[in-house]
């Protein structure tokens, strides 16, 4: 699939004016996607973006590919039908934290367990943007919004934790503002066979500004971002002073590298069959205001995909034999006929 099509980011920009608020993190994600789509070696006409409803869900309009801006929460279901019938397409889902985890939660977890070929970009701004600022299932507890003047009382989902609970085969997290990281994670996601879930931390300057400041601001960033790199010990902080080790009590925890020695650090491996370590790593980001979080690929394993298996059954059954009319005649007649002369 490395045909040189000589497409550029411009070829992937539609003629529609982009209409997010000034400063919205969605712009950066759009730019990054337009930037790396040409590198996938796919023809525009073979790419389909399907979205639900929300600010994020406007995404498909801005890409000159095939696209559908569907209804709230249902994009993974729609994408499942498309991916199952069209193995030749690259199917993408764009969704927000409300779209994916509130109304669309069921379709999301089922797509992941089935492992249908699609790449899901979950724009997590921890707020409902389009409906003007209610808290979302990823908002921190106590969040004061229009619908929670005394603070919300819901414990939030951690999208990565939930995805691992649903036994997703590819789970990653990245940040809108880090184009390089975003591009590398999305490229890996696009290359994955099966459902790839990528949580993208996305700033909503209008209704939830600064939700991810800790992981974005130059002065806090290094201590807040825990980069997960395949085959590397998990280290972070200024001068890599901090690291992650397995906790004998279960899970993982953050230590000073000086205290334990570099060799004690957990070496990140995305391909472990058992998702337990990935799960433990996902627990490093607290449910409250985001102070610290791993980014990168948590899990990337092979498992047969739903649509491949479904198509295999069609083939095994002989769907490619051409005598369908004769076969149909035989089917309709069945075994117990009688004839009136």
């Amino acid at each position, binding site marked *: 699939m490395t045909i040189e099509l000589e497409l550029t980011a411009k070829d992937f920009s539609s003629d529609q004016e982009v209409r997010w608020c000034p400063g919205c993190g969605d712009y950066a994600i759009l730019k990054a996607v337009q930037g790396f789509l040409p590198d996938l070696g796919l023809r525009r006409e073979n790419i389909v973006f399907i979205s639900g409803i929300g600010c994020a869900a406007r995404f498909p309009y801005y890409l000159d590919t095939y696209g*559908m801006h*569907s209804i709230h929460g249902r994009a993974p*279901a729609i994408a499942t039908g498309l991916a199952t019938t069209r193995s030749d397409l690259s199917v993408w889902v764009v969704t927000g934290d409300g779209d994916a985890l509130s109304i669309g939660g069921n379709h999301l977890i089922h797509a992941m367990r089935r492992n249908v070929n699609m790449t899901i970009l979950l724009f997590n701004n921890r707020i409902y943007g389009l409906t003007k600022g209610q808290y979302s299932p990823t908002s921190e507890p106590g969040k004061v919004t229009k619908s929670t003047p005394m603070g919300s009382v819901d414990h939030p989902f951690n999208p990565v934790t939930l995805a691992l609970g649903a036994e997703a085969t590819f789970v990653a997290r990245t940040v809108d503002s880090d184009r390089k990281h975003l591009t590398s994670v999305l490229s890996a996601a696009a290359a994955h066979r099966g459902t790839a879930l990528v949580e993208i931390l996305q700033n909503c300057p209008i209704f939830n500004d600064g939700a991810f400041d800790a992981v974005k601001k130059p002065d806090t960033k290094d201590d807040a971002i825990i980069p997960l790199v395949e085959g590397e010990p998990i280290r972070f902080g200024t001068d890599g002073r901090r690291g992650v080790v397995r906790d004998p009590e279960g899970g993982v925890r953050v230590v000073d590298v000086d205290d334990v020695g570099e060799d004690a650090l957990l070496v990140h491996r995305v391909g472990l069959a058992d998702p337990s370590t990935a799960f433990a790593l996902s627990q490093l980001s607290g449910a409250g205001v985001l102070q610290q979080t791993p980014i990168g690929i948590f899990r990337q394993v092979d498992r047969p995909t739903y649509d491949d298996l479904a198509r295999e059954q069609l083939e095994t059954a002989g769907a490619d034999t051409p005598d369908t009319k004769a076969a149909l005649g035989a089917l309709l007649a069945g075994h117990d006929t009688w004839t*009136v002369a």
Partner: protein
Amino acid sequence: MVGAPYSGEVTTTESSSGVEELASVVIRFAGDSGDGMQLTGDRFTQESAVFGNDIATLPNFPAEIRAPQGTLPGVSSFQLHLADHDILTPGDTPDVLVAMNPAALKVNLGDLRRGGTIIVDTHDFTDRNLSKAGYASNPLEDGSLDDYVVHAIDLTGMTVASVEEFDLGRKDAARSKNMFALGLVSWMYGRETDTTAAFISARFAAAPDVRDANIAALTAGYNFGETTEAFGVRYEIGPAPMRTGTYRSITGNLALAYGIVASGVTSGLPVFLGSYPITPASDILHELSKHKRFGVTTFQAEDEIAGIGAALGASFGGALGFTTTSGPGVSLKSETIGLAVMLELPLVVVCVQRGGPSTGLPTKTEQADLLQAMFGRNGEAPVPIVAPQSPADCFDAALEAARIAVTYRTPVILLSDGYLANGSEPWLVPDVEALPAIEPRFATAPQNGDGPFQPYARDAATLARPWAVPGVAGLEHRIGGLEKADGSGDISYDPDNHDLMVRLRQEKVDRVAQDVGPTFVDDPDGDARVLVIGWGSSFGPIGAACRAVRASGISVAQAHLRHLNPFPADLGDVLQRYDRVLVPEMNLGQLRMLLRAKYLVDAVGHNRMRGLPLHVDELVEVITTLEKETR
């Protein structure tokens, strides 16, 4: 229920040879849900069909998977009408009741014709079972069955004796009693048991003991009829005159599934069914999952919404998307149907109606989802609606729904019901080559050569928009649920554009009527003053009632609608021609309301929500009374 409708008359001839000739008979097999009554009924249907009778059937099973043995709610039954002439219903009142236990007798006796025949298995008439069934005394002994011809036989005991040679426990041995009963009834009506024996051989090939026991029981039952003197007379119901051709017996759900398979073949499109199991629609999913070789993909979705969502996604990709469900499922799918209206993509939503509201009577029939199909979505969201009128007609209705969906790029709702789904009738197997073709006509290039592709430009005749499928270079486009500009399909908040688009979508659906022929009115005498008009499965009872009314010397006209939205273009004129219009329905008057609103005709209703087909006798009375009022 085959060939030219509205013919035939009921005749009974007696002969002196110990064989009585009957024009028709209605038999009901009833027993515990574990007794295999559905299978027994099915097989007798098949034997009679092969013999050449016209047939119509009505299975009836409890909502519970296995209600406790011997209880009233656990009773399962199968009613079968066979005749030497064209019939339309499974019959209001059985002539013969086969009752396998006290509960089955109790539940079904009330429906039996006075003077009818009862064949009853005495084996379970113990005190315990009698009281379980709510009998204070044994009806076989207390004289309460004096009005009937009763054959009280220890069917179970004889079955066990007949299969003694096989290596089965007593319980397993007794299991074949339904085959014994079938053998006996087959003898009574002069039916061959060969096809059933062949069927049993195939079905139980893996369990030779069970196979042999069942065949032995079947034969023993037949021979018991032949040998004993208990039955003075056999009956003969001659073959019904039918159009020449090859026939099979078929249920509505099976015919519907076949129609879906056929629509894939005639359109050349892959079929994608996204469905969530629900009674009484699940069998369509089951059947379609067997036909992968026809390019049919079945997706058992996580819920009703995902089922239709995936089907719509498949349609976007150029497949023929279907979803199958019942009323509660349609409720959940409403929002997505609305999206499909906006996207203007082909999609068929099959609703096999059942008793409502809410969970209602899941295993019973009703016609109360017509208005939900018409209006159950936000905004002005019109969709074409078609309905089959008999089990076999489900095949044609499925093809018609698919044709409209593809031709007009629109979701279409097909309204079947529980009675059609499980009922069966003979079906003249169609010639595949003669099936109407469905033309996808995918878009292949922008309308104006190089100009930008216009996904919402419209065909002049149908107002259909192009179906432009991913994979075609140059047709890249984005669609969605927001209002779109006429032609370009871009998002548009323009007030006049919205007004125009709402009207265009309505007009497109209205144009479906241009493919629909004039309303067929059956008015053999040509002078009827009353028109009876219906839709869906009530075709049978209405037709039978009209025949009976005519047989009594009164003229009456009948029309039955395949297309509920839009109505045939001439329907208003048709309605105006009659003094009175009667609309019998298994709901509170849904079609009636639509007719009144559209044509301002003072249509009256005959409405029954009993979870059962309309009663012919009642209908005859209503029609007759109404007719008298016109004089």
